């Protein structure tokens, strides 16, 4: 099992259902800056006409995550299933992981006095045998799809074989596992803030990158401590 997520982000309407479902499901601290997941709004104009691109996002559960490397206590760790987890008891709030994360996916949870971030609803859902996250389940337009990228027959891999996609900040070489599905028609690329520099992947071109990172990091995958 190697959990990953695709996002058909052009269907997003910025209704924030995912943000609320996440907070309710996982007991995330209240506060606008305390978010495990979020929707980024990019507001621009083309020839004076406004356009908005919406990017729902969260922890990328990078296969080669820098947040784990910088953690001095082992609080951040690679867990079975390819999830980047945090052990709150071990966190000393040095915030090194928050600096290291290229996605700003982490924040200080004052209620647990520890850094918090998305866990793909491991504690609340996956451990009980569920196969979707709270954000996926609640979404009115079903942007997200959680799945197993090690399973060629999973709905997720089938989707990635059909659709082109890109990942965020790939130059950081963290091998992120949130796959942003591109519009089927490239007429709509600009409106979805896909520019000429965006590196576009297919399953065949991205799979070797996953394999390589997995070979490097899988030995570090630990059993999840709840």
């Amino acid at each position, binding site marked *: 099992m190697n959990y990953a997520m695709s996002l*058909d982000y*052009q*269907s997003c*309407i*910025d*209704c*924030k*259902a995912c*943000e*609320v*479902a996440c*907070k*309710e*499901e996982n007991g995330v601290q*209240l*506060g*606008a800056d305390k978010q495990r997941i979020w929707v980024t709004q990019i*507001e621009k*104009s083309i020839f*004076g*006409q*406004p*356009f*908005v691109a*919406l990017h729902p996002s969260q922890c990328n559960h990078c296969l080669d995550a820098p947040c784990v490397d910088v953690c001095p206590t082992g609080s951040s760790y690679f867990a079975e299933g390819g999830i980047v987890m945090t052990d709150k008891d071990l966190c000393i709030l040095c915030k090194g992981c928050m600096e290291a994360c290229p996605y700003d996916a982490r924040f200080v949870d004052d209620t647990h006095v520890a850094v918090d971030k998305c866990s793909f609803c491991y504690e609340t859902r996956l451990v009980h045998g569920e*196969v*979707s996250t*709270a954000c*996926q*389940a*609640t*979404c*009115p*337009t*079903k942007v997200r*799809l*959680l799945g197993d990228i090690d399973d060629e027959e999973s*709905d997720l891999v089938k989707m990635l074989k059909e659709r082109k996609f890109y990942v965020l900040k790939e130059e950081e070489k963290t091998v992120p596992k949130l796959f942003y599905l591109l*519009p*089927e*028609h490239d*007429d*709509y690329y600009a*409106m*979805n803030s896909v520019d000429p520099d965006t590196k576009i992947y297919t399953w065949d071109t991205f799979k070797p990158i996953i394999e390589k990172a997995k070979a490097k990091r899988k030995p570090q995958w630990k059993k999840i401590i709840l």
Partner: protein
Amino acid sequence: MKVELSRRKFLQGSVALSVLGGSLASVPTLWAKEKPSSNNTIVATLCEMCVNKCAAFAYVEDGIVKKLNPNPLFPKSKNMLCARGDAGIHALYDPDRLKYPLIRIGKKGSGEFKRATWDEAYEAILHGTDKFQGLKQILDEEENNRSTIGFCAGEGMGEHTYKQFMGDLLGSKNFINHSSICLQTTIAGYTLTLGSYGKADLENANYVIMAGANRAEAILTPDTMDMFKRTRGRGLKLIVLDPRYTNTAIHADKWLGIKVGTDLAFVLALTYVVIKEVLYNKDFVEKNVDHFETYKKHILTNNYTPEWAEKITGVDAHEITKIARDFMANAPRAVYYQGRRTAWSKQDFQLRRAQAIFTALGGGIDVKGGIVFGKKLYLHSHSVEVPTYTTNKRRIDRNEASIVGKNGTWIGFRNMIVEDRTPYPVRAFFSYKQNPMQSVPNVAKTKTMLEKMDLVVTIDTMPSDTVMMSDVILPECTYFEREDPVKSFGGTQPAIVLRNKVLDPMYETKAVFDILKGLSEKISRPLFDIAAKYDEYIQEEIEDSGADAIYEDDGYNFNNAYEQTQEEINEEIITSTYGEEAYETLKEKGVFYPNMDKYFKKISENEYQYYPEDKKYYTTPGGEKIDVQDTCIDEKAIAALKKNLGTRSGRVECYLSSMIKKKVDPMPVWRDELYSEAPKGMFKFITGRDAKHTQNSTTNNIMLLDIMKENYLWINKAQADEKGISHGDWVSVKSSIGEVKIKAYPTIKIIPDVVFYVHGFGSESTGLTFGHRNGASDNLIIEDTVETVFGSAAMHETVVDVRKV
């Protein structure tokens, strides 16, 4: 440290007490009363955070609702919960909830109340206190004219129960609801033109014009969400007309920043192009459109050309021509979306008529991808014995507009009272689940109306601005704490749903059904005695049969309406038509429709099938489905089949002759005198919704405040720059009736000369710890202008001045 009374101790204590009391309480009864200390259950409920009633599962642990998840079984809500639905738990556990009945002891509106028992509250309603009068005195003085009691209700599954009590049993004719501040003009416009408001089949439409409607933000109706999976080259072309670039416009192929209040000119020009170029579905028009030739002549002779419309709307004439052609090329799978809250302009009724006729010209009526009527699963209604009074006068506002229906005109009704124009005194006012202090334009007048009342009673869950103006407050429980009347939802994939009770009511709250039952016990007989004193018809009946017999048998004893519990009524309604099994399905799963076990299928983690494609009710002339899936005729031909619409002629009505005597145009006409631009330097003010809050009902919800705490004034970036206004600056927004201060949001997403902020914020109630005075209330500045056909509010006719403070 947790102190627990053990099960054994509890039983011993209880048994001992009952023995001492000499009662014969059996052991099983005691067992039933005690709740197991550890009990995890999942209850199928229906959301009530807005009006859509999405199906949800409530996860209950040890008697506490821990999480809400979407219930995928309901075809209408299709496995979704929005932000508000997810945050429903905080409506249940809101610390500011109304917890017990309250009786006013200070000045009206002062917020000084005393805690009361239910009996004391009912007693106060009947007899009054030293601060306010009771129903008995009021009705005695008004000689049993029950219409002296005005009453309003917000939308909800309890609305009918309340209306039945106030209108049918108590006997008042003066009912008002949200209709005239919401969707009255569009419902009426479509019903009079097409026979029904119908439903836009956005799952299958290939071309949609959405004007002013904002499905992505304004009341997120789940059955329209599928549209956003098909925009941007994925099958559905979306044209959005709106002065604002909304989240719906984000998905549009074309966004046109139309000038406020000019939509009718746009639709008439579309119609002109289609008629001039003969692009309409001729077969459909011939078979199904009445008075088409008259309409055609009317459109052409009035010269509603795209060039004419460009001058009024600001939309390029070429664009209008192109949209008209594209629309017809995609018809019948082409819809001009009906709209929801359409209380916009003085010309709104004619706008909706023009839209409906325009859609019909493409044949997109009663057909897949067009406006569909679908099917509704039958549920028999629960009837109660209704009393007769001859003393009750007709509703006061019936002449406030050309056509005033049973839902009244809020502004007309209120203004008559405020301006002392009523034909008889309206002295008491009951409000259920509505907050007119925030939802009706011109708050100052609503306040005056409530101040003039000798008795104000409110039934609600939260201390809203209206509740604070009450004499007696009756706390309702939230939707988690009651079973509501079973409901059937029509459509292409019809279903029946039940809101099951998740928990017993908290504090001393009650379901509205039980509140009215309790009130009936208190007031039924005393009010009958007053009726008997003044009503000659009742006096004659009493002479024949005796007072007690008349009281009991002819509906004057309201208690008879509440003999069965809501649960019993639901069980009877469901089992009588669909059998025991259907009832059990509803109790367990919340949703039922025939063949659900066969039809409902999970396709993937994100997709479900509710009905197989060939079983969906797309085309239902006269309410009966016709099977068009097996035939290979083309869609334009299917659309052109003879329909039997619910209008008087059974056809699409272009010309409503019945309107003439009501001094309403029989056909949509653009009237220059009903439109004006904002004077130079001033702005037209528009209001609207946001996906994160439901009108004014969620602004104390901590989870939703977390994602949206207050509203901002949208102002065109260039105009804000001219005025030196930057993001977050405080500005004053002033109209002829009021002034607010609010933070500014300069943006390119709104056209010049228009400003906007979201409705619902700016509550003045000190009872709302978190929602108190966040942002500004729109109705403090919106003038009480009405459109004259239905007396519906025209909320987008107010001109404001904006300056930095």
